[in-house]
């Protein structure tokens, strides 16, 4: 199949999103230097929702464009998750940029859209090259976003750290890929999958090294221990909505790429690399949860909580019984993670902005100041901690069942006990909200802007809804053809 007769309509959502992103970019130039441009935010959300609809329409049928770009169940579900996640991030950002006049809004929104485009490309690629292009589009946009408060030292520090370490991680990935290409002579994941079993027999050390290099690089992107060191600093310094972007969208897209590469490209040698993920999952859960306990700043706490959550998400990667079930588990937990983390970040943005303080104590007395937010936050935290009746509870249970079915008892034990450890810090935030009085110099009532409250409400409904009616998602996932 040549590029001329390929089914380009499969790419419609990406093409439309790119055009819309460019339109928003241009509109920004055309509307002068006046800083507050809420219409751009609204337009971005609309573009994302429109793209979501297009994904649902055009990606329903599986298909591919010359082994480079594939559309399958996995791509479709993750694209929808990513698009809705970014829409939520932009809704939070609209409140944020309104308060920070040093943020150039047009660029901000279009960078977010470009990052989204990169993420969509990532989860849809079946070729190492497209995959890397998508990854870099996401990463470079994210580096810029992290430093968006350019007069703020911490934000700049975050951006520099992120770009240096992120660049190194990309180099690792490329280095690993180059070995794979050198040995197989192809960049197509499907062809690689066919070639690797014999290669593993012939050159076990080089193959293992190639895989290790890639895991190190991807591990950085999804912030698993020991490649997580950047996360707390970058999360703390970056503008809070960008932090939510990094911890939700960027991480889910990163998982998308890991799953795509390893379950499509290296599926035939599962036994050779599964234990690496098992070890990573174990230390990620232990370290993430332990270090989160001692955090005193809410954004750093969420960074380590995000590390721990990445560990839970890695458990099914390492404990595959059947591919469908593993994918179903990860995707369910990813949806739950999106809802609970995004909701929590919406509230964190509001609270830290309002109190101009990102210490945990900025949450004190939130129940008196904004009862609805406090209740919603409680539900998100319960979901993150894996308590009923939430999507997180069921998601964790599901992963846990899988781990025991794969007879990886030790990993299941670590998972469940580190979850109990996480009670300490999640309930610590609840303690601030319900059992401390508001600080005297905070307003007695916290007014909630509409976009933020919309994100909170939608996430809340989703978190509880998928906790009660998890069957809706699981049934859908069970009938999905994950990989092309």
């Amino acid at each position, binding site marked *: 199949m040549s590029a001329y007769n390929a089914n380009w309509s499969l790419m419609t959502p990406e093409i439309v999103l790119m055009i819309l992103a460019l339109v928003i970019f241009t509109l920004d130039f055309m509307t002068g230097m006046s800083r507050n441009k809420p219409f751009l935010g609204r337009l971005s959300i609309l573009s994302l929702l429109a793209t979501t609809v297009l994904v649902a329409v055009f990606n329903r049928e599986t298909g591919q464009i010359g082994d480079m770009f594939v559309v399958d169940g996995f791509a479709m579900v993750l694209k929808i998750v990513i698009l809705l996640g970014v829409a939520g991030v932009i809704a939070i950002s609209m409140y944020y940029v309104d308060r920070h006049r040093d943020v150039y809004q047009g660029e901000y929104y279009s960078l977010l859209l470009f990052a989204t485009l990169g993420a969509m490309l990532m989860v849809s690629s079946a070729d190492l090259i497209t995959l890397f292009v998508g990854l870099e589009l996401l990463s470079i946009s994210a580096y810029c976003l992290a430093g968006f408060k350019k007069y703020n030292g911490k934000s700049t520090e975050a951006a520099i750290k992120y770009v240096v370490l992120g660049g190194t991680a990309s180099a690792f990935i490329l280095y690993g890929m180059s070995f794979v290409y050198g040995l197989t002579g192809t960049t197509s994941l499907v062809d690689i999958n066919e070639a690797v079993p014999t290669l593993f027999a012939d050159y076990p050390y080089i193959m293992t090294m190639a895989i290790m290099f890639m895991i190190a690089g991807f591990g950085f992107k999804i912030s698993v221990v020991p490649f997580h060191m950047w996360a707390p600093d970058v999360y703390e310094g970056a503008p809070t909505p960008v932090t939510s972007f990094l911890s939700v969208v960027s991480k889910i897209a990163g998982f998308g790429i890991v799953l795509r590469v390893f379950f499509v490209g290296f599926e035939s040698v599962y036994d050779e690399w599964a234990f690496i993920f098992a070890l990573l999952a174990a230390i990620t859960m232990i370290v993430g949860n332990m270090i989160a306990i001692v955090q005193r700043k809410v954004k750093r706490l969420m960074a380590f909580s995000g590390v721990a959550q990445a560990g839970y998400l890695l458990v099914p990667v390492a404990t595959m019984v059947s591919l469908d079930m593993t994918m179903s588990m990860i995707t369910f937990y990813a949806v739950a993670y999106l809802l609970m983390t995004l909701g929590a970040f919406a509230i964190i943005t509001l609270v830290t902005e309002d109190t101009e303080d990102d210490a945990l104590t900025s949450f004190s007395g939130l129940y008196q100041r904004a009862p609805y937010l406090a209740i919603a936050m409680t539900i998100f935290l319960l979901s993150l901690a894996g308590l009923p009746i939430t999507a997180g509870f069921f998601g964790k249970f599901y992963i846990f*069942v899988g781990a025991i079915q794969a007879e990886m008892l030790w990993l299941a034990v670590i998972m469940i006990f580190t979850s109990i450890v996480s009670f300490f810090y999640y309930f610590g935030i609840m303690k601030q909200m319900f059992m401390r009085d508001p600080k005297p110099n905070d307003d007695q009532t916290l007014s909630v802007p509409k976009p933020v409250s919309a994100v909170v409400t939608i996430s809340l409904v989703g978190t509880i809804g998928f906790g009660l009616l998890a069957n809706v998602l699981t049934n859908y996932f069970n009938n999905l053809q994950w990989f092309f």
Partner: protein
Amino acid sequence: MIPNLLTWIVFFPLVGALLILAIPREQKNAIRSIAAGTSIITLILSILAWIGFDRSQSGMQFVESYSWINLGDFQIYYDLGVDGLSMPLLLLVTLITTLSITASFNIKERVKEYFTWILILMTGLLGVFVAQDLFLFFLFFELTLIPVFFLISIWGGKEREPASIKFLIYNGLGSAVMVMAFIALAYKAFEATAFSHATFNISALADIFSNPEVSGVLTDSLKAGIFLALLIAFAVKLPIIPLHTWLPNAYVEAPTGVSMMLAGVLSKMGAYGLLRISYGILPDQAVNFATFIAILGVVNILYGAFIALVQTDLKKLIAYSSISHLGIVLLGVASVTEAGIQGAVFQLVSHGFIVALLFFMVGAIYERTNTRTISELGGLSKSVPVLAGFMLAAAMASLGLPGLSGFVSELLAFIGIFGASAEIIPAARVIAVVGAIGIIFTAAYLLWAMQRTTFGKMDEKYLGLPDARPMEYIPMIGLLGLSLLIGVYPSILSDVINTTVIDIVSKIGG
């Protein structure tokens, strides 16, 4: 009968909780009446179930079963049902919660949240006793953690925050062990049936494990491991020494109404889980572990009693007496005789009423005197004769005065352990005698405490304290009356539990 009666019972409190959330927090009386009304309606519904319960049948009744979540191989069902074991406990939950809500009318601060949490807790507790699917059981079990954490840490005493965290972590760890055991049970059953029966249903699992062909595939050490894990998990809730250290803090720091719930109902979840899941699914292990459990029971009785003897704080004394009394449950359960298990269920119900009454009395006295230190109280029978009288009556019930429920249950449990077959528990009689000594200590510490508080020299400053208010009569008379009812007319309870107990014992074959 009302269709889906159990669903109504379990989720009606949740409806009440949502209703309360919709009411402005200033309207405290409206909130209180909604909470009370909700619990009373739930109580009425559970009484309807009690009346409609077929006493001659041993299986599950009021069964509801809907397919819920598909996990690939496994299918989670929304399975509810009650049998003779869960029916009395279901009624116990609704009774104690209703009375605890009445007793909590004097909560002045953050009334709205308080009653919301109590009603959510009620849903969790009711769910545990009717769930027939392990996932559902686990869900409700975990659901009880959250309200208790908040109830202790917001409305508790001085040391409330460490107490609530300790409660959360201990019970969280217990649940963690439990869920591992659950999934191991389900998965091993799945494996043993050559991957043909994937189920979380308790009775289906019991059938698989009792099937001789399947049992052969599963090794004894595996079953013993699962049984032990379940025992540890339920031991935290019950609690069994040495996993009890969260209990004194939690019981003492919790506000009166919550102490009543914790001691009266929450601790029963552990014993219920042991009977329903451990004994129900792994009856052969129940025999292997019988001696171990019996010894744990005796240790509980003696340790609880000894520590209670030296307590200076009245509420702490009751907390330790609660540990001691639940040891009797373990003795009865371990005996695997009809009398023993019946006695254990009796003791669960009876202890629920009595300990709730004791905590209520301590709360009422603390409210007036502002102290719980035994040596600072004295002569209460002169200053507050009615309260003192009820406290004395509660203490008598607790130490097993004939005519009150404590006597019947302890008698049955001890008959059970005396009659336990020597093959199952080698030194059953010795254990029974040692346990009975513990009962003497119970009498000692309770009578000694009563002597120092209700009688003895009266402190002048307590003169003129207001005696029981009309609202306080409701829980006092209600709880004592129920204890008396079971004491003089035990068959009201034994009718319901008998067939199920016979069924459990016949499966164990003891």
